[in-house]
Structure formats: structure tokens, C-alpha cells
């Protein structure tokens, strides 16, 4: 039984279970749903879930284990000689390919099932036979491989059969068990809600697992990096200048500095603009204006960052030079080239406007009208109401939106590379070119340096360090929200 078919059958069993469970509960109450502990649908779901959950869990387990077992079985047939010639893994993949080719051939009618099982390399050019049905093989098939492939097919067939029996059996058993418990006093709702709750917990733990995964995928290389490069130089070094011939200086400080600097400028643009836009949209704008302007602003979040990068490089940068550069409008000579912290910050700020505006708008909209009435009734102007009553009440959501924007600013690469430059520098002047941690993670990871060298490995430590720093910033933000949160009602 093929995998999609099994899934379909389980779903069908669940659907049947739903109907039966619901029916049995109804019958036990004599058709009067008022006598039931829970709504009839809950009994149905209870049976459906009992059919699906164990079956799907078993299916997943089976899918994970069967290949391992079969591989183990089949690989014991491979002679040491062939393993030495290439590697077990590769021979096995060849076996799988042949097995699959045989399957295809059988499916295409080029071979009968028996033939496929009894084919001998001595008598048939397997490569050619399979080639005829469009299966390309890298080399001629050895008899060992063919044997193994045939064994593989046998075992897979067996495994698939077992899988179908076990999984479907579990589904039936689960459904039957839940079905016989479906009577009017059974707390079906509680049981279903317990399952839903576990699903919710599982969802929440995915976020945690992601963090663990990130930490794990960074940590080994980070440790490796620190073995090659002194940690103190990395954390406190004021120069960032990797070089291929060794003797790189990999101080993170200038990168952190520029990251914060650029993000700060980006937020200085996006937060006021976004907040004012949000307030206007939710408090002043007519529904028609709002319905149009909000999605339009959201397009800003969807424009690929490479466009923003080019915009920074070709438009905003030169414009800023015209104003702040030598011989510019202001007559100051602060800016030498178009690429600068300011350029990247400004452009990034534009990109982040919808992050702040859209979410804040939703949250502001959710503040109960009674709060506005209370304030307006005291003779406050609309803006006073917004500033002193609505925004504080909406604070947690707004901080969430700003955090999201800040996060995005910290994680942005393309705009930085094109707008702020690629060379690290430690300077206070926002009109100078600098570069950020994220940009350097990308460039060191996609660069040409020896991948086992500190110049390449530093990407992982940069990632790890950034992770820790943003963690600190987030804890601080949480603290702020907790402190100033105003809960309405």
C-alpha cells in the first residue's frame, strides 16, 4: 500500500470514526443532545483523533525506522571489496537506484514482477533494460548490486505490507476503543481539548526547538573558531580585517557598533513614520482611505531587499552626497561617498515602515471605544487621547511591532552591503561607510577563504554573538513592556 493511500485510508477511518462516535453518543442519549456531557461533535472528534494520532505517530516512526532496518539487512550483503572500492553509502544508493529502476520497469510493463525478482546480470544487460524505460544508471550493474537490489525490493515490499497492517490496525483499534467509550457521560470535550492543548504545546515548542537547533548548528563551528582565534581578540578587537594569508584581525566591535548604528537610524525613520501612519490610519482616516493605504504600505515590506539595496546605492546615496558631501547643499563636507551608515539606515527605515504601521494599527484599533469616550468626554483633543490613553494601552503590541522592525533591521544584509558598504569601520560619523555583523556573516560564509580557517568559521561566532546580544536586548524590551503595560478593563 503506498504512502498516500495509507494516509487517505487513515483519514477515511477517522471520518468514519467521527460519524460512528457521534452516532453512538447520540444513541446513548436517546437522540437528545441535551443529555450528553459534550456536544456531539466532540464525541466524533474524539474517535477521529483516537484513530489518527496513534496511526500517524506509528506511521512516522515506521517511516523513520524501516529504511534503517532494510539498509542494515541489505548492506550486510555487500562485500567488503565493493565497500573499499567506493563507500557503503554509495553502493547502497546504487542498490536503491537499481531497485527503483526495477520498480519503474515493472510499473512501465517492461518487466514482469517475477522477471524483476529473478533477473540475472549474467543473462541480461540490466543497465540497458532499465535505460529503455528511462532509468539512467551511472555504471553497469554488478551481480552483487542486482542481488542486493532484489533483496531490497523484497524487504521493502514486506515492510510496506507490515506498515499498512500495523498503522491501519492501530487506527482501527484506536477508533474502536474511543468509540466504545462514547456514551453520554463520557467527557468528550475535555478529552478533545486535552489533545488540542498538547497540539498547542507542541506548536509552542517548535519555536524552542528552533532555538536549540540554531544554537547547535552554530556551536561546534564557534568552538572550532575559538580554538583557532583568541576569544579576547574577537570580542574586544577594534579592527576587522580578514585576510587570506593569515594574520587576520577579526574584532567584532566595529561590526556590532555599525549594526546598532544602522538599526538605530532605521528605527528612527520607521518608528515615527510607522506610528504616525498607524495612528492616522486607525484614528483619523476614513475606512476607504484605510482600506487602500494600509495594504499599499504593506507592499513596502514585500519589495525584495535587493531593490532597496539598489535604491540606496543609486538614488539615496548620491542624493545624500549632494546634500552632505563636499560642495553639497549644506556646504559641509561630512560625506565622502554615497555608501554610508545613513544611506543604509534611511532606506532600511523605509522598508520597515509597514512593520510598525500595520501591526500598530491593528492593536490601536483593538483598544475599546470606551477608552476614547472617557478621554474625549473630559475635553481632551483626539491627539491627546491618542498620546495619553490609547498608545499606553496599546503599548505591548506596539513594542512588539517595533521589536519586529528592529529584528528585521539587525538581520538585513542586502541593503547594508549596497547601502553601507562592505568595509568595517569604527566611527561616530553616520556619513561614513561601515558594515554590520549580518553582512559579514553572509560574506564570510559565501566567500573564498579556506572553510576550515578562522576567516570562514568566524561567521558562526558572529552569528552566535549576535544571537546572545539580541537576547539581551529582548530581555530588556520585555522588562520595559512589563513595567509600563496598562491593561484596559
Amino acid at each position, binding site marked *: 500500500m503506498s504512502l498516500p493511500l495509507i494516509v487517505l485510508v487513515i483519514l477515511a477511518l477517522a471520518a468514519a470514526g467521527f460519524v460512528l462516535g457521534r452516532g453512538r453518543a447520540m444513541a446513548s442519549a436517546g437522540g437528545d443532545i441535551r443529555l450528553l456531557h459534550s456536544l456531539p461533535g466532540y464525541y466524533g472528534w474524539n474517535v477521529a483523533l483516537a484513530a489518527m494520532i496513534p496511526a500517524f505517530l506509528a506511521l512516522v516512526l515506521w517511516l523513520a525506522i524501516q*529504511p534503517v532496518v532494510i539498509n542494515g539487512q541489505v548492506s550486510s550483503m555487500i562485500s567488503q571489496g565493493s565497500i573499499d572500492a*567506493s*563507500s557503503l*553509502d*554509495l*553502493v547502497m*544508493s*546504487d542498490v*536503491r*537506484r537499481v531497485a*527503483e529502476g526495477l520498480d519503474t520497469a515493472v510499473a512501465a510493463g517492461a518487466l514482469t514482477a517475477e522477471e524483476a525478482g529473478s533477473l540475472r546480470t549474467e543473462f541480461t544487460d540490466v543497465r540497458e533494460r532499465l535505460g529503455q524505460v528511462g532509468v*539512467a*544508471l*551511472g*555504471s553497469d550493474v554488478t551481480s552483487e548490486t542486482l542481488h542486493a537490489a532484489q533483496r531490497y525490493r523484497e524487504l521493502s515490499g514486506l515492510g510496506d505490507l507490515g506498515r499498512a497492517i500495523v498503522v491501519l490496525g492501530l487506527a482501527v483499534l484506536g477508533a474502536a476503543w474511543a468509540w466504545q467509550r462514547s456514551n453520554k457521560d463520557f467527557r468528550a470535550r475535555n478529552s478533545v481539548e486535552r489533545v488540542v492543548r498538547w497540539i498547542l504545546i507542541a506548536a509552542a515548542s517548535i519555536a524552542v526547538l528552533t532555538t536549540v537547533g540554531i544554537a547547535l548548528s552554530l556551536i561546534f563551528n564557534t568552538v572550532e573558531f575559538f580554538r583557532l582565534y583568541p576569544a579576547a581578540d574577537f570580542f574586544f578587537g577594534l579592527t576587522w*580585517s*580578514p*585576510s*587570506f*594569508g593569515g*594574520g587576520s584581525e577579526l574584532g567584532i566591535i566595529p561590526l556590532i557598533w555599525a549594526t546598532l548604528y544602522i538599526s538605530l537610524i532605521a528605527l528612527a525613520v520607521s518608528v515615527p513614520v510607522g506610528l504616525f501612519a498607524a495612528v492616522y490610519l486607525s484614528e483619523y482616516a476614513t475606512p476607504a482611505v484605510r482600506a487602500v493605504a494600509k495594504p499599499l504600505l504593506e507592499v513596502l515590506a514585500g519589495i525584495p531587499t535587493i531593490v532597496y539595496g*539598489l535604491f540606496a*546605492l*543609486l538614488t539615496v*546615496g*548620491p542624493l545624500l552626497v549632494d546634500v552632505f558631501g563636499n560642495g553639497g547643499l549644506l556646504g559641509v563636507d561630512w560625506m*565622502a*561617498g*554615497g*555608501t554610508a551608515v545613513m544611506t543604509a539606515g534611511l532606506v532600511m527605515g523605509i522598508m520597515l515602515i509597514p512593520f510598525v504601521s500595520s501591526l500598530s494599527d491593528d492593536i490601536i484599533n483593538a483598544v475599546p471605544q470606551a477608552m476614547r469616550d472617557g478621554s474625549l468626554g473630559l475635553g481632551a483633543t483626539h491627539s491627546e487621547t491618542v498620546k495619553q490613553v490609547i498608545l499606553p494601552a496599546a503599548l505591548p503590541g506596539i513594542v512588539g511591532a517595533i521589536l519586529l522592525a528592529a529584528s528585521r533591521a539587525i538581520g538585513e544584509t542586502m541593503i547594508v*552591503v*549596497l547601502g553601507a*558598504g*562592505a*568595509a568595517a*569601520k569604527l566611527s561616530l560619523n553616520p556619513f*561614513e*561607510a561601515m*558594515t554590520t555583523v549580518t*553582512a559579514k556573516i553572509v*560574506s*564570510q*560564509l*559565501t*566567500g*573564498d*577563504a*579556506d*572553510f*576550515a*580557517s578562522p*576567516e*570562514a568559521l568566524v561567521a558562526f561566532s558572529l552569528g552566535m554573538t549576535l544571537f546572545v546580544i539580541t537576547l539581551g536586548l529582548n530581555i530588556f524590551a520585555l522588562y520595559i513592556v512589563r513595567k509600563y503595560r496598562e491593561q484596559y478593563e
Partner: protein
Amino acid sequence: AIARDQIQIAGSSTVLPYASIVAEAFGENTDFPTPVVESGGSSAGLKKFCTGVGENTIDIANASRPIRESEIKACAEAGVTDIMEVRIGYDGIVFASDINGADFAFTPTDWYKALAAEVVVDGKLAANSATTWKQVNDALPEQEIQAFVPGTKHGTREVFEEKVMMQGCEDSGALKAMVDGGMDKKDAAKKCITLRTDGRSVDIDGDYTETLARLDANKAGIGVFGLAFYENNTDKLKVATMSDVTPSTQSIASGEYPVSRPLFFYVKKAHIGVIPGLKEFAQFFVSDELAGPDGPLAQYGLVSDPELAKVQEAVASETTLTH
């Protein structure tokens, strides 16, 4: 796990255009599926290459530099032992400016004097104060120094440092002066290749299109490009001579033009015979029809390998690296 039937390639973005031309032609001319060529850089490609053998690892890594000893070691630790090295040709590195600007005829010395962070003035090291090319070399035009050089992630940077900056440092006698001045040889060499950070030299971490865009925004700039890129943009760029040689596939192949680097790809021998078409692809790549001086690769800008025949032979006999 389904068996994979197309070749997986990853690595250098410099090699990518050539690999993609070959892959496309390979798909069109054989019964094998078109290989997948990922970009991501030489380092990332080799790293993927060295995660092990087997279906879920790549078959070929492109690189714009030879594989390093430490990488070979890491590869071996993961079980990737028999590696075939295939040199496909050379990447010329050229210096170009805006098409409407002045003509330049550079020597490495000019670049060293213009871009080194510190230069030797009266036997002592001092911060580089040159602002125009003319100050560096009277023969050059009176134009602000503004160079767009590859960022430190790029292999091209290494070539630039070695073949231009270091060369210039030696040619101009600055290296000798520093060593004579009591400097450690190694430190002196490092000084030679350290670029100034006052904005005269701008690192480009992106690709050549970014350099081109920067020239567009700053007409006085001189950019460092690959030959192929220049040849596709002759309407916007004017190429400079280096030591009086004009870069071209011929002048580079003959070794006259000094600034170039070899391009490679690496094949896992263990995958040959397992991944359909792998060896065929490798042979196809270095065939005369493709990699030869009149093939589409050269057409696109690859400097064809003068010793192509040797390479073809090595591929045919599946010669692996011996270290």
C-alpha cells in the same frame, strides 16, 4: 529516500557562469538531466563537498582557487578521499573605468602607491596622502583616486594583493626600504598589502554588477572586474592596460598579462559510476568544443587553459589528487 538522478554542483560564483553554460549544453546534448549548479562561494561549495560521500552530498565543487591542504584533510576525515582536480581555465582580472573617462595605463607600482595604507616617504612609513593618480605617477591623468576593489571575502582580492599590491611594493622598492629600515619581513609584506581606509579604496563584497553600479554613481572610480564581465560591458567600461599589456583571453593565456587566477572544479571519484552522467559531465566540460579557445566558454570570457589536453587526459583517467 529516492535515488538522485541529476548531478549536484556547488561552489564558486566566478565559475558559476561557465558551469551553467556547460550544464545547459550538457542537458541539451545528452540524455542526462541538466545538472544543478548552486552558487554560494568557493568556500561554502568545498565545505559542502567535504561533508561526506553519498547521495545527499554534492558531486562537484567549483572553486576559484585550488583546494587547501586543511580542506583536503577535513574532506578525508569525512570520508571524501579520492578527489579529482580539474582546472578549466583562467579568470583574467582587469582594471576598468567609465567608458567616457580618461585612459589609464597602470603598473603595479601605481596601484601600490595609490592604495597602500602607508607608504615609505624618505625611508619612513607615513600615511598615504595621495589624492590623485597624477600624484602617484606623472603619466597618469589628473583624476581623484577612487578604487573599487573586491572585498576580503573574494578570492580575487588575494590575487589583487599578491599580483598588484605586493608586486608594486617590490617594484617600487618600498619592500626593500621597509626591510632595510629594520622591519620584519613578514610585517613588511603585510604593510605592502594593507589598503587605506579613508574612502579612497572601497571594498566590494557583492559582485561585479555592484562594482559597475558604483562606477555609475561615481564616474571617477576605477573598478576591478573579471575579464568576462568586462567583455560583456564594453559599452560602459574602458579597460586599462597593466604594465602596457591590454587584457584579453590571448594575452592572459600567453602569460603576458600578469593578473589572473586559475579556476577549478573538484569531482568526487567515489560518485563516478553512481551518479548518472558524472564522468560524462566532467569530460564534456573540458572538451575542446566547450573549453577550447573557440568554444562558448572562451566566447563568454574564460581564458582557456593552454594545457587543456593534459586536463582532458587526467579526467579521462580519473586521476585524483595525491597529497
